[in-house]
């Protein structure tokens, strides 16, 4: 664990640090605004609400982070999430005996979709945006043909998980945190995890180092699918039923991409961290929470979200400008350093 904490410390000093700085500012501002209105941002109800809304998006974002690190995108997540929800609830049909079978079916299906995405992106080399858009559409066809509205019923065990809390912390949030740590470990402690950064960062360097770029692609997309499946299970645990629409309702595709980017990752790949993405979600969740308490008009909420995304990324883009070491820097006084034209791309 010591390496993890070191890793955490390292990333806090880098761009992830900015993310958490922003988060702290948001929380302070939120607490002040809500307090000014006679409400408590840190009330157990609000904290619990904040954590719950973090859970499902969080799971999706963890997967999306991997995919974005690779330089790809996963637009199929909302549909995978819905798929997992209808399959699990359908198989369980409210019976305890079907608990394991339901979970297994849902997760297998979700992972399989992820694997297909991985094959399309990693082996066939279709642009991730288009490939996952395509698989998403295919799944949506399956979902809406075979399911009309909510379906099935969660087994009592699953429902119990969905409602259980440890203090104010929902158990599902703890589950999300466990997934987060596992994926963080995967990224920092396995070769494939490290190679994922390499393939996303510079495919040529990766190849020169003997890395087969398809492997990280397959793994990242499969995990993304799998975690979208887990997110579907969490939703079933809370709703008690499966629904072909839960994924699209949440807008998890674009929202998760936005959260990852607000968390400091770059869309081209190779840069970013799970912890940053977590910060990204928390920023979103905190602002949403404040706006919820303040009963901001739902349409204005969208405006605020849009502003956050743009402002955050613009700030990171500023910070990431490359400085060119100067041979004769000492001689000159006030001349500004100017990147070569190639550096802007």
């Amino acid at each position, binding site marked *: 664990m010591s390496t993890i904490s070191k890793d955490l410390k390292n990333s806090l000093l880098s761009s992830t640090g900015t993310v958490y700085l922003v988060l702290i500012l948001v929380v302070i501002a939120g607490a002040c605004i809500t307090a000014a209105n006679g409400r408590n941002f840190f009330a157990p109800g609000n904290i*619990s609400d904040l954590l719950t809304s973090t859970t499902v998006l969080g799971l999706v974002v963890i997967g999306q982070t991997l995919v974005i690190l690779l330089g790809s995108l996963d637009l199929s997540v909302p549909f995978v999430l819905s798929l997992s929800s209808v399959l699990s609830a359908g198989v369980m049909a409210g019976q305890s005996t079907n608990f394991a079978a339901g979970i297994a079916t849902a997760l297998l299906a979700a992972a399989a979709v992820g694997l297909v995405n991985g094959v399309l992106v990693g082996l066939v080399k279709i642009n991730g945006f288009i490939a996952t858009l395509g698989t998403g559409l295919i799944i949506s066809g399956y979902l809406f043909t075979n399911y009309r509205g909510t379906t099935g019923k969660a087994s009592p065990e699953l429902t119990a998980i969905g409602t259980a809390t440890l203090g104010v912390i929902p158990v599902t949030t703890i589950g999300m945190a466990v997934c987060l740590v596992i994926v963080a470990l995967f990224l920092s402690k396995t070769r494939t995890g490290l190679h994922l950064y390499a393939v996303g960062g510079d495919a040529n360097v990766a190849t020169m180092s003997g890395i087969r770029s398809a492997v990280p692609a397959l793994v990242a997309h499969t995990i993304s699918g799998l975690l979208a499946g887990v997110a579907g299970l969490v939703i079933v645990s809370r*709703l008690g039923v499966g629904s072909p629409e839960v994924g699209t*309702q949440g807008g998890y595709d674009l929202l998760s991409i936005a959260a990852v980017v607000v968390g400091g990752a770059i869309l081209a790949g190779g840069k970013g961290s799970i912890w940053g993405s977590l910060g990204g979600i928390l920023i979103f969740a905190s602002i949403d929470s404040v706006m919820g308490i303040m009963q901001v*008009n739902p*349409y204005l909420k969208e405006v605020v979200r849009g502003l956050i995304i743009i402002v955050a990324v613009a700030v990171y883009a500023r910070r990431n400008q490359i400085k060119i070491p100067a041979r004769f820097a000492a001689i000159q006084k006030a001349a500004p350093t100017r990147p070569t034209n190639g550096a802007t791309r």
Partner: protein
Amino acid sequence: MQTSAARTTTFTVLAALALAVSACAPGGTAATPATEAATQNSWFDQQKYDLENSQRTATFTGDPAKPYLQYLPGPMVEAGAFKASGPAKVCFSNAALSNTWRQTGWITMNEQLKELQKQGIISELETRNAQDSDNTQVADIDYFVNEKSCDAFIIAPNSPQATAPAVERACSTGKPVIIFDRGAGTNCGTTFIHSVGGMAWGMDSASFIKDNVEPGGHVVVLRTAAGVDVFEQRWAAAQHIFNEAGLKYTDYITGADPTKIKSIVTDEIAKGNVDAVWVDLGDQAVPAIEAFEDAGKDIPVVTGEDNLAYLRAWKAKGFKGFASVYDAYQWRTALLAAAQLFQGQAIPKDWVLPQIPVTAKELDTVLATNQGMPDTHYAASGGEDLPGFPQVWQQRVIP
């Protein structure tokens, strides 16, 4: 060049594939065989159908001038412990404001709120919008429950089954829980306010088509979305009636996108005879009507809803129309129910509001009452006796 050649091959293969797919597709041409589909619709529930069928024509208790307070005789809930000593706080978990019906209802609700605040019955209405997401709504309800500051809950569920667990948690607080619109998959609520129902809605308009189209006629069915219970129930009832009447039909999912609707109807006109168009949402009717106009065909029977865009088109174009109604004033009733409980008055456990469709006979009256309202307004908004009427609805400012 190799890639390019491959491209061409691929496209040829694809074209062949597309041909194959379309050739193998069920139905092949024209309408879906009626009998086959009849057994398929999992949303059809004979008991519910019969119940709503009888309620359609039942006599309602209460002042007909205040339809939003009318109800069918049945078990009542005593206010008892709910009686409040001073102004009380109501928490409202709303599924969404994402369509014009909901927006109209929300405006009415807010005008009613102002009245009740003036009267000192309700202190505050705290609202959270779930933006069409079940998961968000569950979180919203849990937030209210955990904050422990609500004296009553009003819940307009996004989908009945999915929000049931959260609604039950709201019930367990012991505070009144008022459900309206789509219903909750649980019976724990203090009251469930709704107009007669989706099936009755479908029955009304489908019966009109049955009465005006010869058996064997062809109905184009425009459905907003699959799997949304309000729409599915409307369609399930209509489908039942079409099957019984021996009408053929082709159904489409449109997302209420006028562009899509118009293309679909245009294609249907090109394919052959269309004797009627049935819609499950009023917004869908106008583009369908226009498709006939643009094709230079007479407008057949096109049903709709009490949104003014449809009513006005009906009036202007003089086709055989019929407007089912799903009262937007139930939004107001929900708030009034809370107020009545706070004041210690009993309310119906299952509060069924009248659901009276607009037929050709009432059309002129309804249009006259709603002069100056935007096209997106719903005639059955039930705000006529509120102080802000009609300016607030005309300006249509969403609070």
